[in-house]
């Protein structure tokens, strides 16, 4: 079992084969698309994080409020 797959090419490939793929406009198009995608995914992460923080804050507020009400109830009952 060899470590590499070594192949011999009889002739060299032409410059035209390279030129067929060299296209800076296409490349920048892909780059812009990728940047947009990356921006949107970052935005999505920020939105999810903000929603999470707000949700935690709301749940925390509700729990604290419930606790306060529960603590106030026995005091009122004792006054009675």
């Amino acid at each position, binding site marked *: 079992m*060899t*470590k590499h797959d070594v192949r011999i*090419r009889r002739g060299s490939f032409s410059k035209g084969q390279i030129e067929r793929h*060299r296209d800076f406009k296409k*490349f920048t198009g892909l780059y812009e698309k*990728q940047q947009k995608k990356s921006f949107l995914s970052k935005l999505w992460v920020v939105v999810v994080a903000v929603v999470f923080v707000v949700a935690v804050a709301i749940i925390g507020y509700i729990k604290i409020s419930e606790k306060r009400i529960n603590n106030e109830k026995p005091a009122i009952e004792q006054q009675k």
Partner: protein
Amino acid sequence: MTDSGFIGPLPNEEQLINAARKDYREFEPLYDHYYEQIYRFVYRRTDDHDLAADLVSQTFMKALNSLKGFQYRGVPFGAWLHRIASNEIKKHFRSKGTKQVFSIEQQQIVDLIDFQDEESTDEEINQLVKLLADLEETELAVIELRFFEEKNFKEIAYILDMKESAVKMRTYRTLEKLRGFFKLKVND
């Protein structure tokens, strides 16, 4: 440019890199200058034009995305691109779970090895193929970068993330291995 596709750095490379950092459209001269060299390098490691084009595109994309992190420390931009391309190739073969390809032009072998007898050339080439196929990944990489990509030891060390002295030692040892079977046209 030589047959290997080797080209030197651009004269105002650092300025071009700084300009591309500010505006990605300024990346064009660097893209145009290095495209062929990186394409030839990747094609040698894939033997597939479409795959080579994809990996070259990914290489330039990664380079452009991390251009801000590139520091010009005496190693040309081309060596950095080779390093990225080399990692992309490794990643591709790792994900495919297949052996890495190394395709080489017959002429490049003729330039490397001094065949004594024309009649036995094919037999010797087959022997060389077997020998290259059994080399360690780093051994094959140093031979490729030194003699087919015409990189100096400093650049090879940078591309392979090794010390320059280790690259020299590895090149010397690999050439000694080859000298055990062939008369070489190249020196260390």
